[in-house]
C-alpha cells in the first residue's frame, strides 16, 4: 500500500479547504472549510505515521481533533455572538475595521 496517493489526497483536500475559506461567505461554512483543512492534515499525519512506522502521527492527529473540538466551541460561540448582534452570518458584513 503506497503512501503517495494518500498524501496527494490530503493535499487536495487541504487546498480545497483553503480555497473554501477564501470563497465562502457564511462564517459557519468558512469554519467548516477550516475543519476540512485540519482533517486533511490529519490524513497526512496518519499516513506518515504508517510510512514512518511509529504512532506519533496518530497521536498528533488525536491532538488535532481535541484542539479542533475546543476551537469549534470557541469559534461557534464567537460566530453566534456576531450573528446575534448583526443578524448575519456573512463574514463580509463584519468589515468596519479597515485601512
Amino acid at each position: 500500500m503506497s503512501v503517495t496517493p494518500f498524501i496527494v489526497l490530503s493535499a487536495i483536500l487541504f487546498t480545497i479547504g483553503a480555497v473554501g475559506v477564501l470563497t465562502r461567505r457564511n462564517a459557519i461554512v468558512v469554519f467548516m472549510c477550516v475543519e476540512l483543512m485540519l482533517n486533511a492534515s490529519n490524513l497526512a499525519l496518519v499516513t506518515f505515521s504508517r510510512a514512518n512506522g511509529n504512532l506519533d502521527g496518530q497521536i498528533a492527529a488525536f491532538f488535532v481533533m481535541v484542539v479542533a473540538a475546543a476551537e469549534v466551541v470557541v469559534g461557534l460561540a464567537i460566530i453566534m455572538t456576531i450573528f446575534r448582534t448583526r443578524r448575519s452570518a456573512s463574514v463580509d458584513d463584519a468589515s468596519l475595521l479597515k485601512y
Partner: protein
Amino acid sequence: MIGFWILAPVMVVAALGLLFARKAVHAALTLAVVMISLAVLYLIEDAPFLFAVQIIVYTGAILMLFLFVLMLVGVDASDSIVETIRGHRLVSIIVGLGFGLTLVLGVAQVSFGSAVGLVSANKDGNIPAIAKILFTRYVFAFEVTSALLITAALGAMVLAHRERLTPKPTQAALAAQRMRDYADKGTHLGPLPPPGVFARHNSVDTPALLPDGTAAEASISRVLAARGTVKSVPEISADIHELEGGEDS
C-alpha cells in the same frame, strides 16, 4: 487500496461540495461525507483508534455542533453566489490552484519507498500502543489540552450565557403588576382575544371580529401587523361572501 480508490473520489467531490453548496446545511452534509470517509481511511491505515475518535468526536460531536448552530442561524439561509470583493474570486482560484499544484506536485514527486507500516508499532494493539505513548511521551501535552477544553467551556459561557440579573418574578408579583397596570394605564386585564376563527380562515394572521364587524387589533400579533401580513376584514368578508353567494346560487 481498493477502499482508498473508491473513497478518494467521493471525498474530493464531497469536499468540492463544500465549495459550491449554496446552502450551509448542504455543505455540512458533504463535510460529513468527507469525515466519515476519512474515518474509513484511518481504518485502512491501521489507525482503528482514530477511526473511532473521528466518528465520535468529529462526525458525532463537532459536526453536530455545526448543525446546531446552523439551525440557530437559519437553515434556509443560502449564500449569494455573487462575489462582492472585486477580483477576489479570480485571485483566490489562481492562488488556490497554484498552491494546490505546488503542494500536490511537491509531495507526489517524493518517493516514499515502501511504508514501514505499523505492524510492529501496533503489535500490542493500536489502542494500548497509543495509550502508552500518549501517557508517557505526550502526557504533558495531553494534560495541557484540558486547559483548552476549560477555555472552550468558559468561552462559550461568557459569550452565550445570559445571567439573570433580577430575581425571577413570582406569580403573585406578576398578578399585582397586572392589576397596577390596569389601574394606572388601563391595560387590558384579561388574556388577549384569540385570532378570528372562520370557516376558511383560522390562522394567526386573521383578526377576530368585534361584535360590530370590525377587526379586533389586539387579537393578532403586533409583529404580523408590522409586517403587513394581516388579513384585512374586507378580504375575509369577500371570501365569506363568495361562500355565501355560492350557496345562494
